[in-house]
């Protein structure tokens, strides 16, 4: 099941690697995170110029047709460099929802691929936890548009976005799977308020208040949950690839440190207890990598993938948590500092483990989807 990259994919990978090596080292990232806006429009444009923002889109909408595999390649490298720019939010989440919705949304996709517009997905609410169907926000038809009222919470990248895709209820009760619809909303439009905050992993997010905001229906009315589920599967693929990239960096940093850090007259890597710990970190990464690749390949087929996506989110999540914990522990006090990158990988992995559901949520979903099958 090992993925053999084609020449084209190899080229994509090496060009992403080169770009990030030249322009996105840890110091550059620190400056971006500390900047007023919190992400780099210049970097975003560089991603667009390299074709990264067009890579996963199919050729019929003007993309490069790289699908989930190109997303995987990009996200693994982004994970290694802790890239904060909203690739998942814009390209994977909004991009796939727009593409699914049909040809009407073509111009939005063109603006994503050119790097002109940034998107965010607003699905979480105060009480929704990780349930896509738990939607209290409502949408009422008015002419050819809808008017949205409600509150969305912890919307990652909302402060950066030009457009939001918002889930809102057009019928039914709060937890019904049916009756949720998706809407495109102008983030700077009337009656929409943002309260921005920083996330643990150096991004920006916002609480979004919709007080009668005009939105255009995306896809079919009442079928938003089904669309979001497919979108989540792809997001999980991207997040797992990013986590696996971060885990690889943590493992190599820890291994390197253990070979140079001396205590008690010898390198700490010579202590058996730490050797075994690092072997377990290695195994955890290998397993996570394998399952992530398995998921990526399945995302490109017509087979149902939700169960595998949940399984991977859980397994990769626990593996990432273990590796991140131990990488900090083995770096000692240094692992606790803001100055060293190790703690920042820890925080990104912690954040990935919340997005779209934590490992405990997904292991249960994995079991339930089996029972349902």
């Amino acid at each position: 099941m090992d993925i053999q990259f084609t020449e084209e994919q190899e080229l994509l990978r090496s060009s992403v690697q080169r770009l990030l090596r030249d322009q996105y080292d840890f110091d550059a990232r620190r400056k971006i995170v500390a900047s007023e806006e919190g992400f780099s429009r210049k970097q975003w444009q560089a991603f667009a110029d390299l074709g990264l923002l067009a890579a996963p889109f199919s050729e019929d909408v003007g993309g490069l047709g790289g699908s989930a595999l190109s997303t995987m390649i990009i996200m693994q490298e982004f994970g290694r460099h802790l890239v904060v720019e909203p690739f998942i939010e814009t390209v994977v989440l909004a991009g796939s929802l727009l593409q699914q919705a049909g040809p009407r949304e073509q111009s939005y996709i063109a603006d994503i691929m050119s790097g002109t517009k940034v998107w965010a997905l607003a699905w979480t609410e105060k009480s929704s936890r990780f349930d896509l169907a738990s939607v209290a926000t409502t949408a009422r038809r008015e002419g050819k548009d809808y008017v949205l009222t409600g509150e969305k919470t912890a919307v990652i990248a909302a402060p950066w976005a030009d457009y939001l895709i918002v889930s809102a209820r057009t019928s039914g009760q709060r937890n019904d799977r049916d009756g949720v619809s998706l809407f495109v909303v102008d983030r700077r439009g009337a009656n929409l308020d943002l309260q921005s905050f920083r996330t643990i992993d150096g991004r920006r997010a916002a609480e979004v208040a919709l007080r009668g905001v005009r939105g255009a229906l995306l896809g079919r009315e009442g079928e938003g949950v089904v669309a979001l589920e497919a979108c989540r599967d792809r997001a999980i693929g991207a997040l797992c690839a990013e986590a696996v990239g971060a885990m690889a960096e943590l493992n190599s940093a820890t291994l390197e440190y253990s070979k140079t850090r001396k205590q008690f007259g010898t390198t700490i890597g010579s202590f058996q207890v730490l050797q075994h710990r690092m072997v377990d970190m290695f195994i955890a990464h290998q397993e996570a990598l394998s399952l992530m690749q398995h998921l990526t390949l399945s995302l490109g087929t017509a087979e149902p993938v939700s169960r595998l996506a949940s399984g991977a989110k859980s397994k990769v999540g626990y593996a990432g948590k273990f590796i991140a914990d131990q990488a900090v522990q083995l770096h000692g006090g240094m692992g606790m500092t803001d100055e060293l990158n190790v703690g920042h990988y820890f925080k990104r992995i912690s954040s990935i483990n919340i997005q779209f559901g934590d490992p405990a949520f997904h292991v249960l979903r994995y079991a339930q989807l089996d029972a349902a099958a």
Partner: protein
Amino acid sequence: MELALSSEDAAFRDEVRAFIAQNYPAEMRVANPETDLSKEQMLLWHRILHKKGWIAPLWPREYGGPGWSITRRFIFEQETTRAGTMPPLAFSVTMVGPVIYTFGNEAQKTRFLPRILSGEDWWCQGYSEPGSGSDLATVRTKAVRDGDHYIVNGHKTWTTLAQHADWIFCLVRTDPNARPPSGISFLLIDIKSPGVTVRPIITIDGSHEVNDVFLEDVRVPVENLIGEENKGWTYAKFLLGNERTGMAGIGRSTRYIEKLKKVVKAEIPEDDPAHLEFVRDIARVELDVLALEATELRVVAQMARGIDPGPAASLFKIRGTEIFQDITELTHRAIGNYGLAIREHPVSANRFMPGPDYGHTASEKYLNSRKLSIYGGSNEIQRNIIAKAVLGL
């Protein structure tokens, strides 16, 4: 679980409980006291305890301690940690104070002890160095004798709250040719001395608790040497023994479990399958606390009978820190999507923080508690101690 108390000790417990309830300053009850209080605020409770004569439970009566039995000391610790009061300044009262009254000369005792008790002097610890973490005996900070001064050069790190400190007690190398741990001396240094630079280290939770301390040609009077030159390791080991007591952190864990239960109740409806999972995880960590508390009570009872607990402190440190890490992790998980948010430091009410109040410190507590298994002798080192001293391996 309670220690079986005599009626006198039970009355003492009630007195302590009532004193805390009546006197603990309301302004110290902030979201995260460890990082949110100013120096002045941290000292409020210290001064109240000093006035009451309760600031240094460990100290003998002749130096200003209350003269409590082991049982009463334990009761006091239990009541204060359960109530969530800020502990007395650890590096001053628990660490350097006992070193001074045990190994210092009369002049040092007279000069330093009263100011430690009153809170006039704030002490920090100059032990760790960039190359000396778990292996403290290899400290490289040098002190060279020059008439009636030492000239000190070196770099200390992870120095907790050095930004507030008046004094730093340091392990310094006075004999460069001696094999570690020989050749180390224990020196008291006025942190305002020329040549001392304190530089903040920001940790992954965004807070400023620890610092680098650079010592550059710092002149320290010879009278600030504790005990004998080159015998500092003996005093340092004595002090590290003190650092590990109270590490079980039963009171703190119990309080944070109560908070966790409130978060779960508010955030996760009972018909959510995650609810049962949290109920089970909380029960498991409660049992961990119960078992550790029972172990602590057993050790306290033995100590009261004059039995040396030996390396029991290592067990408390390992389990106490692991348990607290579990609790902070569960709390961070329980707040769901709000776990993505983190307060910015220095903390200000003007900065927006999403979600309910009880979740506002969950992210930083989760991140900050990663340090617990690293500092004060990493948990790997503690396991080595038990393997060697208890199991004889």
